[in-house]
């Protein structure tokens, strides 16, 4: 501990640890509880844990710079707490305010301890303020990052979810597409379809686009790419689920579907697929 003021600070605060905690809780526990997002016990635990780690690190750290490696234990604690609160549904302002709110009881203690020297009080309280500001803003940054991570993971899950390939019959696969078809999804769609073709040895794939809201030139291109790739693997494709508006759009855009069989419903496409396999469908006659 180099500066005498830091030593004095650590001393003063260390001595009044319990009073500090009690006063902090008194001032801000009601605010924290108001949201009802966590149990009182857990919140009390957070207050006391942060205060402890802050006061424990203070004597060891030789600086008031919050980003310095010596303050790492506090940053780690705040990072974990921030991510935890993000999951619970707290806003980043609430989490940062939690850190800032420590200033009030701290200043009260410091004013008392440095009452003989207003200049020193001003100096120390400014430094502590900067320190806590830094930590408060750090929680916001961590919060952002953890939200971004959640979004990224959800995007991945969405991609996985919406491209199942099912086997309708021996040698016939169905690929029901739901949602828009962008380049990223087309890649995933192509890969899953081709892999399934290899796994099942299917010779026919029915791509159903009932769930695709709009078909523009890009979507049409992606569809045709998928058909071409499947054909290279020895499987023919039938596109089904074409709504009347889509049919109009396709013709207006001049998309060339001459090499692809198209049907308006999945049922019709399935019948065509079975016929191509050489199967015949007979319905038992109703009893007279």
């Amino acid at each position, binding site marked *: 501990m180099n500066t005498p003021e830091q030593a004095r600070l650590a001393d003063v605060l260390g001595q009044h640890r319990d009073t500090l905690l009690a006063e902090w809780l008194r001032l801000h526990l009601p605010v924290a509880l108001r949201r009802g997002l966590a149990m009182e016990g857990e919140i009390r635990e957070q207050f006391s844990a942060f205060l402890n780690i802050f006061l424990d690190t203070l004597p060891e750290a030789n600086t008031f710079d919050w980003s310095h490696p010596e303050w790492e234990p506090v940053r780690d604690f705040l990072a974990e707490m921030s991510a935890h609160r993000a999951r619970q549904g707290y806003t980043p302002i609430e989490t940062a305010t939690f850190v800032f709110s420590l200033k009030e009881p701290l200043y009260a203690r410091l004013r008392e301890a440095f009452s003989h020297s207003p200049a020193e009080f001003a100096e120390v309280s400014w430094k502590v303020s900067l320190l806590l500001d830094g930590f408060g803003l750090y929680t916001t940054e961590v919060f952002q990052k953890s939200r971004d991570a959640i979004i990224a993971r959800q995007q991945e899950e969405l991609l996985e979810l919406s491209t199942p390939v099912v086997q309708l019959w021996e040698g016939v696969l169905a690929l029901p597409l739901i949602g828009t078809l962008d380049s990223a999804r087309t*890649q995933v769609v*192509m*890969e899953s379809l*081709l*892999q399934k*073709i*290899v796994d099942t*040895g299917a*010779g026919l794939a029915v791509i159903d686009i009932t769930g695709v809201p709009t078909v523009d030139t890009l979507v049409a291109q992606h569809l045709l*790419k998928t058909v*071409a*790739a*499947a*054909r*290279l*693997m*020895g*499987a023919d494709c039938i596109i089904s689920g074409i709504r009347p508006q889509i049919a109009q759009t396709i013709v207006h855009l001049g998309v060339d579907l001459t090499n692809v069989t198209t049907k308006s419903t999945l049922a019709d496409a399935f019948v065509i697929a079975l016929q191509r396999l050489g199967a015949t469908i007979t319905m038992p006659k109703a009893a007279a």
Partner: protein
Amino acid sequence: MERIPILRLGDYLIVTIQVDMHDRLAITLQDDLTERIVKESAKGVLIDISALDVVDSFIGRMISNTAAMAMVLDAQTVVVGMQPSVAITLVELGLTLSGVRTALNIEKGMALLKQRQPR
């Protein structure tokens, strides 16, 4: 000099590409293949590329040309064993391998060749 072996199965020839193709190897293959088609009156050629993880535009073109040459000699070509990643790459590159039929494996490839379409 390395050559790609050409095997005969009845009226058909089977070629398995297992090594990286370079110019000379491709030309040698085309020479050998056309000779064998004539010599054995082969009705069809099966090119197995299941060992290839990567197919570039050179190989794509080579396969197209070989198929065209075989067609001139009245033999049909079927390419088998394309891996999914290769199919995606070919489609992205815009190489449609027109004039070349494809099948998933040798069994299906032979079935395709046997239902030979008249010229």
